[in-house]
Structure formats: C-alpha cells, structure tokens
C-alpha cells in the first residue's frame, strides 16, 4: 500500500459509524453526524480540502440528498395515506383466508406480502405489519419475526419506490439503464433462495420439499416482474411490480392448496372476507401503477412534466495535495417528473379514493401529515449527514485512497468481497439506501481501478446491502417489539445471521460468475 496512514485515516469516518452503530448502538442520525464531523476534519487537515472545495462539496451533497429524500418523504406519505384508511390492515387480513396450509401462509404472507409491502412502503414496515399477523396465525414469536425479515430483503433495493436504487444512481452518477439490469437479476435470483429459506424458517426441510414448485413459480414470477420493470425504466415501481406479480400468482396457488391441512395447520380465520373493502384497499396502489405507466409511456406527458429541472454547474475543485474533481453538472432533478413527485400524485389519488369510500376517521389529513413528518425527520437527518460525509470523502480524495488500498489488498478477490462491503454498510447504517450512499462511490472507484465491470460490482453492492439490511439493529428492534419479543433481539439476530450469510454468499458467487462471463 502506497500510503498506509492515509488509507487508515480515510477509513476512519466509516469505521467510526460502524463502531458507534454496532458497538455502542447509536442511531443512524447520531452516528451520521459523528461520521460527517470526522470526514470534515480529516478532509481539511490530512487531505488538504480548502474552503472553496468544501463549499461546492456541501452544495453538491445537498442536491444528492434532496434527490433521495424526495422519494423517502413521498413514499412514506403514500404508506400513511393507505394505513390511515385501514388499507394495509385489510390486505393483511384477507391473506389468511386463502389457505390453511401453514407453509403456504408463510410464503404468501411472510414472503409475497412482505415483498409487496416493501415495494410500496419499506422503512421496516413489512416486519412491523406482518409479525403480529403471523403470531395471530399461531407461529412462534421468533418465527413470526424471522419469516418476514428474510422474506422482504430481496425487494429492498427496488422497494420503497426505488429510494435505495436512486441513492446508488446519485452516489455513482451512473445511468439507471446501466445498473438496473444486473441489480434486478442478482436480487431476482436471490429471491428464489429467499422463498426456500422462508419455508425452512417456518416448517423446516419437509416444507421446502413439499412446496418446491410454488416457491419456483412465485420466485420466478416476482423476480421476472421486478427485472422487467427495472429494465423498462420503471425502477421506482419495480419492487412493487414484483410484489404485485407475487400476489397475483399466490392467490390461485394458495387456493389450490387451501385444504392441504398439515399437522401444524393454523385455525381458519374467523372473520368473513369483505371483497369490496379489499378492492378499494388495492385501488389506492393501482393508481400508482397507472400514473407511473402514463408518465413513462406517454412521451408528451413525460416531456411536459420534465420541463422544470434543477441542475447546477460545478467548477473543477482541487485539494492542496493535488487531487482534482473535474467540473461538471450536479445531479439533475426534474421537479414534476421525479419519482417523489409521482408518489405524491399517487398519494393524492389514493387519498381521494379512500376518502370517497368513507374510510377516513375525522382529522385524518392532520394525522397523516403529522405521522409522516415525525417518521421521516430522523432518516432525513441521517441521510443528509451521511451524503455530506460521502461527498466530502469523494471530493477530498479519501474515497480514492480507500479504493486504491482496497484494490491492492483484495486484488482478484475483489468481486467476492464487494457484496460483503455492501452488506456491512447496510448492517452498520441501518439501510440499503445509506449503504449505497456511503459505499457506492468507493465500489465504483475500486471497480475502475481493478478493471472489473462497474455495473456488476455495483449490483453486488446494492444486492448485498439489501439482503443484509434485514439484520440492521433498527429493523430487528422494530420486528421484535411488534411480535412481543422486546428484549430478545439477540435471539432474532442469531437466527438471522446464517440465513443472511447464505444469501450474501450467493451474491458473491453470482458476482464472480458475472465478472467471469463479462
């Protein structure tokens, strides 16, 4: 390594976040603040970042933060609009009516419905919503947390209306056309393994053999729908399309297995299924598909909405040590065509539908807005801090130093290591989005230095991060608390480690295969 001291100093902000979040159990916002401060000081003192460089760096980081935050704010607004109307509960209650087969219940609710919820909401919602449903169906509390935790991981990158993928695009500056295909392919293949692991967590090896065909059908259908959506440029709803395809396949499949009572079958649901209520609940999300498709497929509408763009030109900036960031335009944000704007239109439409159906209690708009604001504030702070930290590291040459050190030390093994870096980032920062922000540029630079395909390495980054994000302490705490396992988070984590490890190992193998074939 050319300069070991510079490498370790460059590593310090990332290591600090890891120690604070994992070792001392700090939240992402606090750890992000500490990471930012350390990157600022090290950038100024050891890497020669001056005031001009830092000023433009912060402005660039602000644009990137807005790009990601618009989606997160609007995605959570849509979730709150549906949740306040009882739509999420209605969909969740309808699913146990489909089958009494416990293995199928685990698949349909813990995998397919969890993926659907990740597609429309995310932010720990799948585990929080599904764990209590599974406990109610007779699953043990530990299984009730483990099943949806494993079940939704493959849908994280293109879930939450694509916020994690948007973060990857923002952090690397690469186009979605280059990254969407490999990322969706890796996640789709891992989705199949996720289905089998969900069955293993629910009923062991026997259920894996018994429900082999349903897993193949569901996994292929969901993975293919997500892949086609991402490749077609609909990456902001690709996770949602995957979950929706899963629900459409699961309904006839579960109906076929409805009388397949195993010795562990759970009691039949006591409430009657209200079809009208279910259709209204789903129609709020149908609006999202219609709006997205209309904007993507009608060129005149697409052009009209894309007229107002925020884009800022940045001059070249150099550190006193000679590291230069070339001049160029910052990330362009089309205000009315942005994925966040599309989500806002869908939220307004869904609100209109649910309001007309009389699903809202009094004072609902206030509760929706207040709930959204309270929930998004902390992640907004952590994303703003971590994005600033990542851009300071990039523009001051710290990321370049890290990438060079990593390329030298891992060499030909780098493709195998790449998904584990993403996984580590997700575990330490609590989300796929944050991991992509912190490590996206580093992985890209290392791929460039080692000569490997950037698209495949970045697919490994986001896939590893998505699958490992289910182990993030914040998600585990939410899941454990909703299943009545508060204080036993260690048990949940211990059970999740082998499942998650197997999934990230699969991504390592796929990355090596992808590099070998490219």
């Amino acid at each position: 390594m050319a300069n070991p001291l510079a490498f370790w100093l460059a590593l310090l902000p990332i290591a600090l976040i890891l120690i604070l979040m994992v070792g001392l159990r700090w939240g992402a916002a606090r750890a992000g603040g500490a990471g930012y401060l350390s990157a600022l000081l090290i950038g100024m003192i050891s890497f020669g970042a001056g005031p001009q460089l830092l000023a433009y760096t912060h402005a660039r980081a602000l644009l990137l933060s807005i790009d990601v935050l618009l989606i997160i704010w609007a995605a959570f607004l849509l979730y709150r609009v549906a949740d306040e109307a009882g739509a999420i509960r209605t969909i969740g209650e309808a699913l146990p009516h489909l089958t009494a087969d416990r293995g199928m219940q685990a698949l349909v609710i813990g995998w397919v419905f969890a993926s659907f919820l990740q597609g429309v909401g995310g932010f720990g919602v799948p585990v929080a919503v599904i764990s209590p449903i599974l406990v109610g169906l007779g699953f043990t509390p530990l299984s009730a947390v483990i099943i949806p935790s494993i079940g939704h991981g493959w849908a994280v990158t293109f879930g939450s209306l694509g916020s994690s993928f948007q973060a990857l695009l923002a952090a690397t500056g690469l186009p979605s056309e280059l990254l969407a295909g490999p990322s969706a392919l890796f996640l789709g293949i891992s989705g199949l393994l996720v289905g089998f692991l969900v069955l293993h967590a629910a009923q062991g090896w026997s259920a894996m053999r018994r429900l082999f065909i349903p897993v193949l059908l569901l996994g292929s259908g969901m993975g293919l729908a997500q892949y086609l959506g991402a490749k077609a440029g609909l990456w902001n709803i690709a996770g949602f399309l995957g979950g929706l395809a899963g629900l459409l396949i699961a309904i006839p499949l579960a109906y076929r297995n409805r009388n397949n009572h195993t010795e562990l079958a759970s009691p039949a649901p006591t409430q009657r299924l209200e079809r009208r209520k279910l259709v209204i609940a789903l129609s709020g999300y149908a609006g999202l598909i219609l709006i997205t498709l209309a904007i993507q497929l009608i060129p005149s509408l697409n052009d009209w909405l894309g007229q107002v763009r925020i884009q800022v030109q940045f001059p070249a900036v150099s550190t006193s040590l000679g590291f230069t960031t070339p001049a160029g335009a910052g990330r362009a944000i089309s205000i009315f065509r942005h994925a966040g704007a599309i989500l806002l239109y869908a939220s307004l439409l869904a609100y209109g539908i649910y309001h007309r159906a009389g699903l809202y209690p009094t004072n609902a708009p206030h509760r929706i807005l207040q709930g959204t604001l309270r929930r998004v504030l902390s992640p907004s702070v952590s994303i703003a801090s971590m994005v600033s930290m990542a851009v300071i590291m990039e523009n001051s040459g710290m990321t370049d130093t890290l990438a060079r050190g990593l390329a030298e030390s891992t060499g030909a093994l780098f493709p195998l290591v790449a998904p584990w870096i993403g996984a580590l980032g997700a575990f330490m920062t609590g989300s796929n989005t944050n991991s992509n922000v912190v490590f996206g540029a580093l992985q890209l630079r290392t791929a460039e230095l080692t000569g490997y395909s950037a698209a495949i390495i970045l697919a490994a980054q986001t896939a590893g991060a998505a699958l490992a994000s289910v182990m993030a302490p914040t998600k585990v705490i939410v899941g454990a608390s909703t299943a009545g396992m508060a204080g036993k988070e260690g048990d949940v984590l211990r059970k999740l480690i082998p499942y998650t490890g197997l999934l990230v190992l699969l991504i390592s193998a796929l990355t090596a295969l992808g590099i070998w074939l490219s």
Partner: protein
Amino acid sequence: MMDWLKKHSFEAQALVFFLITLPAAALYVAARSGAEPVIWLLISMIAFGNILVLFLK
C-alpha cells in the same frame, strides 16, 4: 439543555435538519463570489448541526 433536548426531540431534529441543509445551499453562492469568511461561517453552522445531533436520542 439535555432535558430540553429530550423533551423537544422533534423540534431539535427539525432544527438540526435545517442547520445541515439550508447553509449548504448558501455555500454555493458564497463559493461563487469567493467570500471565504462567509464560507467558514456556513460550514460552522453545518458542523454545529452535526454536533447538536450527537446529543439527540
């Protein structure tokens, strides 16, 4: 101060969010006009926001 932060964590987080985002927009203008003291002032505000967040739970 710690008690106030604990009682008003939402307001404090909102303050932190504005402290770490709004000066960043002004930094672009300051950098273009080469106003170095203003740049340091704005960066100090962002740094203060990030110090403040360390005290929030």
